């Protein structure tokens, strides 16, 4: 029987030779800026994007803050710091498409998306997903715009929003993640090339999942996208974000900023499946993913972050909630998978400011190969946050003895009515669990997939249907044959 001969070594070999499935490069002529960063480049980006003057000023202000800042090094990750003067800060596909239907889109580009497994047509027909695709930072195709427009929902690229809805952008941009928030946020504020903008008017329930697919294509470019989602009073939106990058030997930089604003009674559900190129099995190449994501909850609002992190060589990401309004709710569900030489330092911050605020943190870390996986979280209860409630659970699964799992939870409580629970466990896949599956005719590899799925179920369940299937597949791919 094949199964009985299938040893841990076989599995390891199979895993090591497993190539990055999305590692192809689309040959589309792009318009790329010379490398390096200075005020001129920032101005040029702004000019290229035909931005109003206030935006140019805003960028320059961020750039000046950034020059004074130093790259943070407190995270539990080790990498060669990128040379910020060695990156091209703008890259856009040359044939700038403005299409109403997909037929007009460059067929090569469409093929790219097909290979990614996100056939636009199919999603259009079956899933009812409106996709705003960002390839190397410029929004290429926006679908379902009309349906959304009928409801008064604005879903467009941020550059479009700056031109067409300056009042909204001006009012909210940088309110949750200020320009000087941190090193990468400042960098992003100065040079962001594109991203998505979404506004849901009062009382509107967005009828479909909004989705953006990010992809880094050009060599030597950094991806700096900026997302701003505003849910007006009593509205609801579910937003999906997926990311992939072709495989490259050098490290690519990704420094995004996502700002969510949930006004009174609004609800935002933000899901991410991140599958940037993790580098090859020797740890060469891969994407540096330094992302600032933060949401602000007004009264009775709710923000829910769900993330599946399987890619990137280095991940530095803490989607957070500021629970400012009374009775607001923050949630964070995360699965972080690291394999080979990947390093992830991810988690969340829940800042309880309002009364009766609640937050839930469920984090599942899976480390295999020689990877390091850290959970870093902060739960802070301010003196006025009466009756705040938090529940945190961080589970780690280790596969093999060359990887590491770490937890760094910070809990700061300044109110006596707070109720905080935090628990963390670390374990491995039990031999008896595998044996049980084997005994019932499930081979070892399938058994692992099954157990990992069970381990991650709490988080997978939170993903929208279409994403859950994809995420499940991703988990299997990333961990194929990691243990015996």
């Amino acid at each position, binding site marked *: 029987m094949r199964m009985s001969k299938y040893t841990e070594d076989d599995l390891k070999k199979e895993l090591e030779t497993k190539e990055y499935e999305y590692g192809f490069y689309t040959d589309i002529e792009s318009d790329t800026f010379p490398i390096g960063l200075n005020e001129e480049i920032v101005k040029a980006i702004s000019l290229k994007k035909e931005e109003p003057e206030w935006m140019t000023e805003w960028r320059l202000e961020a750039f000046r803050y950034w020059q004074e800042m130093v790259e943070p090094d*407190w995270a539990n990750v080790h990498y060669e710091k990128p040379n910020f003067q060695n990156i091209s800060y703008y890259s856009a596909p040359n044939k700038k498409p403005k299409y109403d239907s997909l037929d007009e889109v460059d067929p090569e580009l469409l093929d790219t998306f097909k290979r990614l497994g996100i056939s636009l047509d199919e999603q259009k027909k079956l899933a009812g997903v409106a996709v705003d695709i960002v390839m190397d930072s410029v929004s290429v195709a926006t679908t379902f715009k009309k349906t959304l427009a009928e409801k008064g929902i604005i879903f467009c690229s941020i550059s479009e929003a700056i031109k067409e809805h300056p009042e909204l952008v001006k009012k909210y941009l940088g309110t949750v993640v200020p320009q000087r928030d941190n090193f990468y946020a400042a960098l992003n504020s100065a040079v962001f090339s594109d991203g998505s903008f979404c506004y849901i008017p009062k009382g509107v329930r967005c009828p479909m999942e909004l989705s953006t697919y990010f992809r880094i294509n050009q060599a030597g470019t950094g991806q700096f996208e900026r997302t701003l989602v505003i849910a007006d009073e009593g509205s609801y939106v579910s937003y999906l974000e997926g990311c992939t990058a072709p495989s490259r030997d050098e490290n690519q930089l990704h420094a995004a900023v996502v700002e969510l604003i949930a006004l009174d009674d609004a609800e935002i559900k933000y899901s991410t499946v991140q599958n940037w190129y993790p580098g090859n099995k020797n740890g060469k190449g891969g994407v540096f993913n330094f992302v600032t994501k933060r949401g602000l909850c007004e009264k009775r609002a709710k923000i829910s972050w769900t993330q599946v992190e399987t890619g990137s060589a280095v991940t530095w990401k803490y989607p957070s909630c500021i629970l400012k309004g009374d009775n607001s709710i923050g949630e964070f569900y995360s699965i972080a998978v690291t394999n080979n030489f990947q390093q992830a330092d991810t988690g969340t911050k829940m800042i309880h400011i309002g009364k009766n605020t609640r937050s839930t943190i469920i984090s599942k870390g899976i480390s295999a190969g020689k990877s390091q996986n850290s959970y870093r979280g902060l739960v802070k209860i301010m*003196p006025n946050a009466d009756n705040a409630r938090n529940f945190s659970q961080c589970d*780690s699964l*280790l*596969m*093999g*003895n*060359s*990887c*590491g*799992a*770490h*937890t*760094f*939870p*910070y*809990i*700061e*409580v*300044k*109110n*006596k*009515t*707070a*109720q*905080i*629970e*935090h*628990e*963390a*466990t*670390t*374990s*491995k896949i039990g031999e008896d669990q595998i044996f049980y599956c084997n005994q019932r005719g499930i081979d070892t590899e399938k058994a692992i997939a099954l157990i990992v799925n069970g381990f991650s179920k709490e988080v997978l369940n939170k993903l929208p249907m279409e994403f859950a299937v994809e995420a499940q597949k991703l988990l299997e791919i990333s961990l194929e044959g990691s243990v015996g």
Partner: protein
Amino acid sequence: MSFKDKLLSSYIALEDYLEFDSPLHDVRNNAIKIFEEEGFPTKKDEAWKYTSLNSLLKPNYSIYSNKERNVELQNVRKYFLHEIDTYKLVFVDGVYNSFLSETTHDTLDVCLMSSALNKSKYKPVIEAYFNKVAKSDSLTALNTAFTKEGAYIHIPAHKEVEKPIEIINFSTGNEAAMFLQPRNLIVVGENAHVQIIERHQSLSSNEVLTNSVTEIFAEKRAYVDYYKIQNDAETASLIDNTYISQERDTVCRVHTFAFGGKLVRNNLNFYQKGEHCDSTLKGITILEGKQHVDHNTLVHHIAPNCESHQDYKGLFAESSVGVFNGKIIVEKDAQKTDAFQQNNNILIDDKATINAKPQLEIFADDVKCSHGCTIGQFDEDALFYLRSRGIGLKEARALLMYAFANTVLESVKIPELKVRINKLIANKIGVSLGFQL
């Protein structure tokens, strides 16, 4: 002149006074260099994020006491565990007090660090153990550089010490502000058993800052049971650095009862160097006023098949601040480790603060590691249940507090000490219960 500069210049004076052929000469010099480079830790250091030493460094501390001070036994008798016979090592303002102490050289050594450093017969032990497990962080280094006095306890192999050993540091307040740096070395031989109680007590309301370092070495199959009682005056601050090195099959238990003091920082470090070690770290913290207690624990699992258990309970009233920073590191080779850490806190008043950071760093896959941390209030239902049965609010709360702390208290192995701590807790929460728990 800043306190740091003052320490550095008094070191130069100390160096002149010490003989140059002392084996510690290089150790001291290296240590003072570390302190000179790093200085006192600040809030920018991750390990000191929640505790600031700034206010403690302002007073003009005396670094040496001028002469031997006497304290009357009757005045301090209550600080001893006088119900039972014990060995005692008593230091007054950092100077050994022979009148209050009860030492021995009969089969085991319970004596002074100063004599161990100076007498040649102890030289092999000092060379083998002194400063071998202590970390070289700036505060420990500062203590190392100024090593002068403290407890020296050496239990030979297979010796079961028949009575507990008490180490008590008094400060009399004869100096306006006193800086003390006791240095203890405890070597527990193969298969030997020992129980030790450590206490710091200020006898006046003058400022005292103690920077204590204790090194404990447990040889194969040794059993060490250590109790720290911190119920000092509100002007006394303590930085306690304890390092425990465990060889195979050892059991080491440290209980910390933090009820007093202005600022207390406990750096408790366990290193499991052999297989089948068992480490227990437990603590009860009950604070009020503006007290600040920071428990910083480290359990470093280096060898396989070891266990560690941590259980810290905290009750915080008024504007007190509690910090718990517990770190468990499981090295790659430490397979089959079973590490457990629990930290439960209750905030009693509005202005009280708790900062917790339970940390796991795991590099081995076949391990069982978990930690739990809760912050909450008394269970209203339980309170109602007690009150409906005619127990007053205060007593009912006290009962719940006892129940809350009991998981720590019940593992105290010296019955008289348990009674003593019970009384301290009752005193602290201001009730007298008509029965003993």
